[in-house]
């Protein structure tokens, strides 16, 4: 392996822990970013000569702290400096680092860092951008590309997010149990957003954005490593793994969506599925079902089916029912209706979604599902109107292509009641 390859991999792995510890010292994302950059730069100069330190994170924290303190001394003499004893000479880094690195606090440090980036006061797009930039260490250009915006626009979005965070005054004391649980919940929500951003944008352009999905899984694993006994953290990690396991089968060679029931299941990633299923099993032992665990269980019901027709739709319907009770939303009801369609038939499914037509008026999947129900009931004209609406609302070209195929099938003589059996 080349020097830059192994150092790069150590830097990426150490980053959340180091940045989190630096944030505790400096309480400013800007100083922390600069200090981490300086520490990484020194690592690139130093490690090829001296070999990797025993504890890369501790080394980077010490060097980053010293560099940040130097920076503060030079630029802002009036700001109160961190305690003098944090500043140690460069020679004793390896000797003192392990003691100086407050390992008891690193869980709260990383959680705080994640929470700062996932702060509920930030709009979702800023949360995702900040988490990717600060925690994952993606460059502004990489984040901008993932969102299909210009570098300047992304730079501005991140700057705004940082300003809001500074104004929000996230307390730096160790959080209490309730606060910790709230922080974990906020972080889970952002990780899910990062994943969904990657999941829905895959196939949108020539460049695949599945990197965001991998990044979300990495963040979920980071959180799970910190809180190994939290069932909802297991649930989200399982959910993401089970969704990502299907990624190789989601698009055909032309980039069109391949629906779940038509996917080549041999392309699904067996290891990711095994890991996801294992986590759901572990979570279930805690008997504290939450929305992520339920959604993971739904994804599990899909991947457990060897063939599409083996899918246990009535279990899925019950799981959506449970999700609806925990987190009522028209989208969940829509999903339950799709399960009812598969398990029972199009008529009760259609009846379930008709009351949602105002709330979901601009939602692609509502019109796509409604079109499919109507098509199966033989109401071709209404189905066509629903599909037309869906095409207009499609989020990706692949979605539009799929619905156009449905419309074509409506006009072909072969279309009929049995198209979904």
């Amino acid at each position, binding site marked *: 392996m080349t020097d830059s390859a192994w150092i790069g991999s150590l830097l990426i792995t150490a980053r959340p822990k180091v940045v989190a510890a630096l944030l505790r010292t400096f309480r400013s994302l800007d100083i922390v970013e600069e200090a981490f950059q300086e520490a990484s730069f020194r690592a690139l100069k130093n490690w090829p000569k001296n070999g990797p330190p025993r504890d890369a994170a501790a080394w980077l924290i010490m060097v980053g702290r010293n560099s940040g303190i130097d920076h503060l001394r030079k630029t802002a003499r009036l700001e109160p400096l961190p305690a003098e004893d944090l500043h140690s000479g460069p020679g004793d880094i390896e000797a003192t680092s392990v003691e100086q690195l407050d390992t008891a606090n690193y869980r709260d440090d990383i959680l705080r860092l994640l929470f700062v980036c996932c702060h509920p006061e930030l709009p979702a797009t800023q949360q995702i951008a900040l988490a990717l930039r600060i925690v994952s260490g993606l460059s502004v250009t990489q984040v901008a590309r993932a969102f299909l915006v210009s570098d300047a626009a992304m730079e501005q979005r991140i700057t705004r997010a940082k300003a809001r965070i500074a104004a929000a005054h996230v307390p730096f004391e160790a959080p209490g149990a309730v606060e910790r649980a709230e922080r974990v919940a906020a972080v889970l929500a952002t990780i899910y957003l990062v994943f969904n951003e990657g999941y829905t944008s895959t196939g949108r352009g020539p460049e695949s954005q599945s990197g965001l999905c991998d990044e979300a899984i990495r963040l979920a694993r980071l959180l799970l490593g910190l809180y190994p006994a939290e069932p909802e953290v*297991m649930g989200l990690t399982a959910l993401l793994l089970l969704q990502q396991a299907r990624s190789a089968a989601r698009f055909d060679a032309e980039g069109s969506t391949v629906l779940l029931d038509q996917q080549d299941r041999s392309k699904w990633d067996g290891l990711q599925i095994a890991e996801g299923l294992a986590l759901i099993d572990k979570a279930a032992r805690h008997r504290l079902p939450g929305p992520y665990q339920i959604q993971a269980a739904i994804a599990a019901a899909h991947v457990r089916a060897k063939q599409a027709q083996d899918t246990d739709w009535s279990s899925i319907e019950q799981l959506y029912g449970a999700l609806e009770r925990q987190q009522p939303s028209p989208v969940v009801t829509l999903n339950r209706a799709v399960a009812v369609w598969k398990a029972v038939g199009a008529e009760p499914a259609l009846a379930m979604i008709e009351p949602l037509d105002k709330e979901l008026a601009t939602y692609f999947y509502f019109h796509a599902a409604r079109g499919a129900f109507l098509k199966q009931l033989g109401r071709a004209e209404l189905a066509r109107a629903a599909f037309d609406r869906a095409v207009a609302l499609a989020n990706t070209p692949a979605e539009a292509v799929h619905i156009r195929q449905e419309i074509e099938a409506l006009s072909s003589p072969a279309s009929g009641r049995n198209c979904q059996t």
Partner: protein
Amino acid sequence: MPEITVMHYSILCYKDEMVTVARTKAYDDAAMAKLEGVTRQVAAEGKLGPAVTLLPTTTATTLRQGRSGSLVIDGPFAETTEQLVGFYIVDCVSLDEVLAIAEDLANANPGGALEIRPVGVYFGDPRPAP
């Protein structure tokens, strides 16, 4: 001349999991291809037993026997920087022979450590071959 006995050895693979799970699929695929090259050779010599990848320690559950009964804990047996991520069983006549195989495995997928431990067979696998 002393009789040459074949021993079962385990080669236990330890890696920092946060590093391995962060690797790209392309990196993993390339490493797997190289490892396959090594194991194919070992198999051709008739020395390869089961080779096992362990899922991340976040999927682990530990049962610990305490004074007041057993306790089930989420997580691995020990929290260490490097984790047991998989193992090979190989049949060799000497430690040198195992070390040579381990060297090839290490070169195919650098990083971490490989621990070599002889295996005592406790009872055979009663399951029918898959």
